[in-house]
């Protein structure tokens, strides 16, 4: 909607040139997006997920996800504790008889036996006298037996988290260690969304840079990039991913981001190359050339803003694809390290749980991912519609 032109007087001083400020591409796009009901709702959902990611990233929520609060495979609360008999029962016969004093009397010298015996007897480490120097060798050969007598009988082990304190059910169920699936899902969203966005940025950056160079310079530069692109895209995607994973030889979030970023730039490259080919012959670029703008300036200051909407849409598409790819990578065992949880690692765990009838981890991670990916995809659609000026009839005026 154009601004009203101020009609102050019939004669205009040169200084007061009537200024019709036509709204920019982004303002228009935002207005179009606002009218798109599906797009707005999707944006809200994506925003909620991103907010969750940020909150959990700063440790404000779900920071205690690794705490084992429930019993092993605690069912979701809405099913009740009795669901499917709960946890697998211990063997009817005692797994191991209580340690009986063996007939065996050891002649073996335990170099730290006396220390262990005193620690076992309940002394604090500071009360135990310092270890005798290596030469003295004044080691009590009966240390072990003493320790067994003193520590073994009656002395109950102080387990880290007694089973009694654990809950029988959890809001969305528990995993095999008794961790809360709800918290795992939130914590997992942090990893998955972060990986998705970060690797999409890497891939889009690469694709844009390569596409700009190839499209703008043309000739042999274009040939080189096209050749590289053709070779790259001729390799099956999963094989390529596994090859990069094998080369990087390290497990971690950064590795996944690199793997996905380094393999996912090809689509963006093709599109951006075409855009640059088209734009470099336009008048405004020739004008900039005439004004003496450098190549880099023309590429990134003049052409780039005019193709940036393509980049943005590409990035959104990649975010969706990479969230799914992270899941696949983690599922194949190339994913996140042991102390990190992601939706992919949760689904990986779920493959064995499903046979046992413990479906809640799969359901939680799967649902969360489905919602986010759908919302993000719809949002991307809406964004593309909003950014495409050729699409008429949407703009309410």
């Amino acid at each position, binding site marked *: 909607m154009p601004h009203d032109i101020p009609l102050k007087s019939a004669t205009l001083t040169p200084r007061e040139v009537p200024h019709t400020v036509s709204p920019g591409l982004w303002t228009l796009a935002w207005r179009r997006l606002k009218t798109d009901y599906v797009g707005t709702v999707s944006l809200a959902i994506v925003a909620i997920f991103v907010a969750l990611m940020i909150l959990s990233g700063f440790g404000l929520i779900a920071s205690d996800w690794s705490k084992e609060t429930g019993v092993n495979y605690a069912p979701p609360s809405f099913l009740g504790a009795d669901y499917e008999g709960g946890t697998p029962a211990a063997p009817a016969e005692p797994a191991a008889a209580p340690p009986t004093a063996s007939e065996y009397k050891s002649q073996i010298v335990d*170099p730290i036996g006396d220390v262990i015996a005193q620690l076992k007897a309940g002394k604090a480490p500071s009360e135990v006298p310092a*270890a005798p120097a290596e030469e003295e060798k004044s080691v009590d050969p009966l240390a072990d037996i003493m320790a067994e007598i003193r520590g073994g009988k009656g002395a109950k082990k102080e387990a880290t988290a007694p089973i009694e304190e654990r809950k029988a059910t959890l809001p969305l169920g528990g995993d095999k260690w008794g961790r809360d699936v709800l918290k795992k899902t939130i914590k997992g969203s942090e990893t998955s969304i972060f990986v998705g966005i970060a690797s999409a940025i890497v891939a889009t950056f690469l694709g844009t840079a390569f596409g700009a160079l190839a499209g703008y310079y043309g000739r042999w530069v274009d040939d080189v990039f096209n050749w590289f692109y053709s070779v790259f895209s001729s390799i099956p995607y999963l094989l390529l991913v596994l090859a990069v994973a094998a080369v990087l030889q390290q497990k971690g979030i950064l590795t996944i981001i690199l793997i996905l970023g380094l393999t996912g730039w090809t689509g963006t490259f093709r599109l951006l190359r075409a855009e640059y080919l088209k734009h470099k012959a336009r008048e405004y670029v020739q004008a900039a050339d005439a004004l003496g703008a450098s190549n880099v300036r023309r590429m990134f200051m003049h052409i780039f803003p005019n193709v940036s909407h393509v980049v943005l849409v590409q990035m959104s598409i990649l975010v969706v694809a990479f969230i799914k790819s992270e899941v696949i990578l983690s599922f194949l065992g190339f994913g996140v390290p042991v102390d990190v949880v992601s939706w992919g690692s949760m689904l990986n765990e779920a493959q064995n749980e499903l046979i046992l009838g413990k479906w809640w981890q799969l359901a939680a991670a799967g649902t969360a991912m489905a919602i986010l990916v759908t919302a993000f995809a719809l949002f991307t659609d809406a964004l593309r519609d909003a950014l495409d000026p050729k699409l008429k009839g949407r703009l309410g005026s």
Partner: protein
Amino acid sequence: MYGGFRVVIAVLGLAAAASAAAADPSKVLRIAFPVQETGFDPVRVSDSYSNTVNEVIFDRLLTYDYLARPAKLVPLAAETMPEISDNGRTYLFKIRRGIYFTPDPAFKGQKRELTAEDFVYTFKRFADPKNRSPWAFMIEGKIEGLDEQIEAARKNGSFNYKATIPGMVALDKYTLRFKLKAPDYLFQYTVAHPPFGAMAREVVDAYGDDLQGHPIGSGPYILKEWKRGTKITLEANPDYRGFVWDFEPTADPWDQEVVKAMRGKMMPQIGRVEISIIEEDQSRWLAFNQKELDYLALPATFRPQVFGADNKINKQWTDQGVTLYRGIDPDIVYTFFNFRDPIVGGFAKEKIALRRAIIMGYNLDEEIRIIRKYQAVQAQMPIPVGVVGYDPNYRSINQYDPVLANKLLDYFGYKKGRDGYRTLPDGKPLVVHQATESAAINRDFNELWKKSMDAIGVRIVFDVSKFADNLKAAKACQLMMWGAAWTADYPDGDNFMQLLYGPNTGQSNNGCYESKSFDALYEKSRVMSPSPERNLLFLDMTRQMEVDGAWSLHVSRERNQLIRPWVKGYKKHPILSAEFEYMDVDTRGVSGL
């Protein structure tokens, strides 16, 4: 005529007796291998599935009693147990008369008796470098005069089968003498090792490279049909001498049933054994469900479908008459520390304390309960149940005790930093690396290690690689920690203790543990015959390994075998794998097929 009539009667009578003795061709047993076989030349194959088949085709000098535990040696092709003299250096075997190879064109129509010379020839084949036998290590360096021949063969490119080797001589057609370089009471286990069955030279020469498909032996079964990687069909050997099933039951109540079903029967009973190769757990499981398999080792993933909450077999299965054989496999699972590693290795007290704290900090109970779903028992010593040297009363001194582990680390100056992780006594960072593979089950173990180590403030990271690469690195003493498993080759503690023997570094001692006192104990045990004194040495070795913190000893794995009701006489043997040789199938019971 009259006389002739009597002859006819006599012949008929004989025929009746023979058919009563021989296996019934209508008795068919159907089982599955989870892994593809490689071939049936026992000298050249190492996989246990091919050797299951070889076990019933070829006759060893000795074999194992079917029921006795720990597994006990009994004569097979030998008439009696060997005469051992010279402090365990000379072994004299008497070969049974009247053992014949199954007829084959290679024998040119002649009946071919098995003789002492066949064993000498077979042993030479194991030593022949051209055969690259995976079992050569069992005789190399042990038999007098054999190593010189191997050396010569390496030089000349061919093994001289005509040369006399003083260490293994056929004194006459039925007498075989082995002379060893050093006393070795375990040599009996070598000649009982399933691949060491007698082969006929004519057959080897006739089939050449095709030998893998033509196993001609003298045992109870013959290879009838072989579709590589798909199906193996065995049939009872019609010319087999047979034996009467007569094994003494042990205290195990299971044995009573076995004895009741089998005692006094002429063996083998099963006329045909059909072995299908089914690699996928789920496919095998479904085949058993469809009654297409007669018994099956239950894959752990399907355990909850068989066991109820009371940890007994479900009614759904008992209604079908399915029985469950539960046993502990003769294996151990452990995690070793590399003694040459600058962080966790060495014999300094603080290093010993670190290793033992790590061992005591590992939550073994959760491994058994959650990861293994109770299909395992805690291993208290490196020798598993069913193996000579196992002591049921022995308890490891390194039991799970995170409180003590923390105190121990505090005492030796592993101070906790602000992030909750400990540093080395000299203030340098403490990071423990554990090698692992990328399968889903490994992640479970990694998670357990991670949270166990977090609880004692030890930072642990996992280096993922392929199994073969890890094994290579381990043999070169380059891994800091790695999980391993070992299954008995022979039922003697020696087979397990050698994993810790210093000079075996680079071969099987992957922790590169070189303890002078352990090695001295081991060497002492090596020259002793099995006895309570030797068992005591095994306990000393165990304790030595524990006070040094060489291994985190985890479990022995449990086997759950599901058996259809018409299968009689099954009992898992710790060493032998072709139990069907001692079993029967009740054809009347086979219904619903």
